[in-house]
């Protein structure tokens, strides 16, 4: 059956989610709310996990067969969210490319273009594989980008993120180094800074703290006015897909450096709202998928 005809008959694009942990399950719930996306397959390893139970309760088709489910049922999806691990994604990426699927990589594998919707949405639309960087990256890159655009000679950008201890599971804790490297690469890419540094703190305080990220920058002759203006445009853009994103301090110059502090409060779809770190990367991923979907559906309805 002609693929375009199939799409024409639909109002939504179908997605598959590989990885039934917290990230995958939160994506599942967000997909359910989307006017342009529906979940054609929720794929994991453990059928009795809470994520799988959630999917079943929502009437979403589940599978424990991993990537094979997509190979054997290629019509189940047009877009794939990979929320497994970097190692697994290296395996999945070529297979999914061969099947012509659009891939949104939630892992640190970083095979494709880094995607920060408020900054480079247009560039990402042409790509078959985009990577969502990290939670700290999604929170700080819009600011780093604004700095790169408005300041002359950006020497150094440093980002410190604090997340609540309870929002950091074993996977986060065992992958701090990957988080740091990926965030630093993302910051460099989007700001043009000569050097970057990322730091992650886990805060065990109760009640749980929201995700908070501080961006420091060393630039020549800081222009705070220009930065403030550009930043407020970008923040509006981010808030379209991450309503809980807020600048709580700055931009100011303190102790010879530009300082901006951002807080992200999550939507509380799957994990509690304090897990803004989870939410921001997922909201960004959904925004990416919805844009693909809208463009594809529009093209189909216009072009044929």
């Amino acid at each position: 059956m002609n693929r375009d005809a199939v799409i024409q008959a639909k109002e939504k694009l179908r997605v598959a989610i590989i990885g039934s942990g917290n990230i995958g399950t939160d994506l599942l719930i967000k997909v359910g709310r989307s006017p342009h996306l529906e979940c054609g397959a929720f794929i994991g390893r453990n059928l009795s996990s809470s994520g799988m139970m959630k999917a079943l309760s929502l009437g979403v088709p589940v599978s424990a067969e991993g990537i094979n489910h997509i190979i054997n049922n290629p019509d189940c999806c047009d877009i794939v969210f990979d929320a497994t691990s970097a190692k697994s994604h290296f395996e999945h990426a070529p297979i999914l490319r061969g099947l012509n699927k659009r891939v949104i990589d939630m892992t640190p594998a970083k095979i494709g273009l880094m995607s920060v919707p408020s900054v480079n949405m247009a560039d990402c639309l042409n790509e078959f594989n985009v990577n969502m960087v990290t939670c700290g990256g999604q929170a700080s890159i819009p600011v780093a980008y604004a700095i790169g655009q408005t300041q002359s000679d950006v020497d150094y950008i440093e980002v410190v993120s604090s997340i609540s201890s309870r929002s950091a599971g074993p996977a986060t804790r065992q992958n701090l180094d990957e988080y740091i490297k990926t965030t630093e690469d993302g910051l460099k890419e989007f700001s043009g800074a000569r050097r970057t540094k990322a730091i992650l703190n886990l805060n065990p305080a109760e009640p749980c703290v929201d995700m908070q990220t501080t961006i420091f920058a060393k630039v020549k002759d800081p222009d705070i006015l220009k930065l403030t203006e550009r930043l407020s445009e970008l923040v509006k853009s981010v808030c379209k897909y991450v309503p809980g994103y807020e600048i709580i301090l700055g931009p100011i110059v303190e102790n010879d450096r530009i300082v901006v502090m951002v807080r992200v409060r999550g939507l509380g779809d799957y994990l509690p709202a304090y897990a803004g770190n989870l939410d921001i990367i997922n909201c960004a991923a959904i925004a990416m998928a919805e844009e693909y979907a809208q463009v594809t559906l529009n093209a189909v309805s216009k072009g044929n």
Partner: protein
Amino acid sequence: MKQECQERTRHDCMRVLEGRDNALEPLRKSELVVIGGTGFVGTWIAEMVAALNDAYDFGIKLTLISRSADQFANRLPHLANRSDISLIKSDVRQLGQFPANADWVIHAAANPDVRTHASNPLDTASVIVDGTMSVMRTAERLGRLQKLLYLSSGLVCGAQSVTANGIAENEQGAPVPDASFMYPNAKRFAETLCSAARAQSRTPVLVARPFSFIGPYQSLDTPWAQTTFLSDALRGHQIRVKGDGQVVRSYLYGSDAAYWFLRILTAGEVGDVVNVGSPTGITLQDLAKEVAKNFEPSPEIMFNTAPRSTGRSAKLLPDTTHAQNVYGLTVFTPLEEAIKLTALWHRLQNN
């Protein structure tokens, strides 16, 4: 897997089988399934089955079920590609596909890595408890099942006191209900599930309690004494012994362990509990010296690298009177030899 290494592990199995193959007769022409079949125990059982089939014409059909089945196939094609060995990739908690004609089942699925127990105690619990429940439910449907052997742990009776000479199967203690002891607690509960399966479903289950092992196929990355000492020596570092080295452990070689498990599986009475391990203790100090002997130049051994004020030493030894009296099982490969073989195997594998 280097050819020479394959030959060595085959040789290890042949040595153990000599004069003892008849005790495993019930396995002849039968179907054996090992769940968690790609770990240390599962791999050695596969080696033993391959030896039984090749040298003694046993005709056993072996199925290994594991969530890392594909990695096993990549690492050990000399086993995975055999026509008498099949692999099923599956999580123990969802045993969808299971050989319906299994005569014998060994449930060895659990991750013995203490680091995972510490960082992921909930996942550790789930694999052991949910996994064992899933195996028991699956066993209810196996029409030809003769025996199911569950691999528990020598730690289910709690920490041993300094003076005890060996933990017997009827030991009364229990581990403290604390996340730091999730592994033995989960294993203890899983043993209880086995008993429940016998009571409720008449499933022919019996239990083995493994203590410590040594041998090829054991990842040197794990932070146990025997693996750390070998790893240090292989890397050309000094061997570091925490404390005064007076802690006592015992180690059973892989081929011996595989034979013990198969013997207990086939000869065991339903409901039996059997310790599997070497009853002969060795201090970590002596273990380090034994390991060092196998390297030229001999690595320096550092004791008391981090001294403790209380010289409290712990022993972890199985009492194997039961295994010996009822099953005729003893240590076949002396520890000195076991260490020598393991060191050599790793050196060959890494060259």
